[in-house]
């Protein structure tokens, strides 16, 4: 089967320049809008959905006449491809569960997407890593202004932009930042950081594996199988959704990855929201850097031991589960950022995060959706990515 065009390039957030602050893995800016005169997609008839889609496509053609981007109708994407897009942060998780006429416009470099008829008629999304959040907002804002000059938005004088979820009413704007904070996690400082951010009305949460269902218990020791702990296939992805229902307590996160999300959309302006989250990101980056220094000063041998073990497993494992892979990637990422290892660049680390997920392994490497088929391929990928990585 030929590869889908979207699988042939790597998203821009993966190939990020080396000089940006390491704890920030990626930033996301999402803006929701609805067309006046129509029900929101959840309550739209199929005929109305088609009209909304056709109007939006018409505007897309006017705004991007010679674009290298392309609109993909959901009917052209199978579930696995939708999972692939969700794993890449191109589509939000909700896109998988939505129904009826819907689609997604993906611009060149896969950093800008426009989701049509999901929970709202329009969702502009920009995902990046090497740029400040303000740049992301500028891109989304300009696009929104262009669309707004050609389409009538559902707007209320007091409540602002009307959205399906009351959590987005007002500006319709959400910022999310994915951060890698291993030193804070290892020093047990996560509750302190959560407390630090609470008064700012920002949510600081952990990532979960797969869909919002509890992970089944691992088989008891001595069960007769020598295989490493491998999760069921549906728990081998990391999704992001718009409203944060796929997130967990910060202390329970996986791979030392944390999500900082803006919360309020009513009663705050876009600028205030941006300022709050930018300040919080600076605080988190500073806290992590200080925690890394403390870790190196007081527990250098233990830290080097953990990194050495992680590197050893990454370079020689034959079976890797998702959770374990993320933990290994986290330790190697920390070591690379602190200059404790050589022969490992940021692209490889981002690729490890992205391509260890199930839909990526299935689509890019042609692996069947079985835990014991995905685990050896994930291990093979890690061995190749970190073959040249050595401890200093």
């Amino acid at each position: 089967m030929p590869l889908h065009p979207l699988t042939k390039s790597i998203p821009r957030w993966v190939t990020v320049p080396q000089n940006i602050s390491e704890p920030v893995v990626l930033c996301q800016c999402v803006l929701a809008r609805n067309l006046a005169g129509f029900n929101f997609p959840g309550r739209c008839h199929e005929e109305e959905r088609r009209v909304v889609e056709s109007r939006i496509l018409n505007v897309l053609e006017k705004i991007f006449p010679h674009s290298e981007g392309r609109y993909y109708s959901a009917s052209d994407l199978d579930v696995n491809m939708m999972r692939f897009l969700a794993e890449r942060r191109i589509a939000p998780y909700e896109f998988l569960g939505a129904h009826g006429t819907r689609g997604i416009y993906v611009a060149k470099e896969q950093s800008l997407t426009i989701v049509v008829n999901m929970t709202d008629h329009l969702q502009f999304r920009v995902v990046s890593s090497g740029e400040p959040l303000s740049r992301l907002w500028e891109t989304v804002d300009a696009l929104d202004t262009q669309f707004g000059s050609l389409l009538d938005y559902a707007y209320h004088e007091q409540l602002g932009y009307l959205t399906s979820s009351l959590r987005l009413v007002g500006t319709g704007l959400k910022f999310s930042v994915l951060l890698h904070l291993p030193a804070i996690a290892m020093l047990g400082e996560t509750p302190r950081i959560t407390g630090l951010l609470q008064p700012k009305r920002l949510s600081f949460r952990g990532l979960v594996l797969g869909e919002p269902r509890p992970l089944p218990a691992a088989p008891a020791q001595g069960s007769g199988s020598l295989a490493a702990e491998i999760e069921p296939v549906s728990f081998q992805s990391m999704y992001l959704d718009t409203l944060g229902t796929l997130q967990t307590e910060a202390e329970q996160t996986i791979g030392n990855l944390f999500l900082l999300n803006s919360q309020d959309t009513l009663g705050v302006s876009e600028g205030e929201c941006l300022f709050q989250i930018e300040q919080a990101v600076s605080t988190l980056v500073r806290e992590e850097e200080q925690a890394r220094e403390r870790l190196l000063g007081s527990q250098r041998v233990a830290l080097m031991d953990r990194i050495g073990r992680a590197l050893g497993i990454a370079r020689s494992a034959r079976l890797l589960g998702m959770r374990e892979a993320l933990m290994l990637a986290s330790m190697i990422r920390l070591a690379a950022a602190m200059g404790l290892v050589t022969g490992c660049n940021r692209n490889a680390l981002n690729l490890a995060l992205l391509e260890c997920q199930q839909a990526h392994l299935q689509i890019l490497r042609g692996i069947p959706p079985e835990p014991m088929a995905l685990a050896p391929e994930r291990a093979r990928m890690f061995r190749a990515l970190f073959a040249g990585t050595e401890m200093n």
Partner: protein
Amino acid sequence: MLCKSCLKNPASIKFTEVVDGKAIQHYLCPECYKALQETPSGFSFSVPSPTLHESATDKTDASAEKNKLARCPGCGAMASQLLESAEAGCPTCFTTFGREINTLLEGLQLGAVHRGKIFKCDDERLRYSKHMQEKRVLLRQMIQEENYEEAARLRDEIARMEAEAQASTIPG
């Protein structure tokens, strides 16, 4: 802060329940929140429920129950659905269920008034949008009443107006 249900684990989830039009905030731990979601009849707190005022509030409860069954003329969504999911079905819900929505927003958002980017739209376009919304509401009513002849006429009229709008309002 401890979870208000089990009084053991730290509370990390703020859950807003709307009772008689008033938002009551509960602070729960993830386990108790999950239990709440999985229990069809809702959640029972260990705090004793009020008994003295029950007879006095019976009437209010009945009127609140009636309000919950009210439907939005725009999309047919019920107030109870909106209260349960904090999701509106269409722009008309915001005027139909204004009181319920304001109460929910109090618990969910920092303020009650939009302070962000303002959408500018000329009067003619606004009138057109409202007119089209009215036509669609009417079409839905006709279908519900099984008046298929009128529904077909409205459907064709909407399609014609849509085509004209596409040709005229979008430049190029």
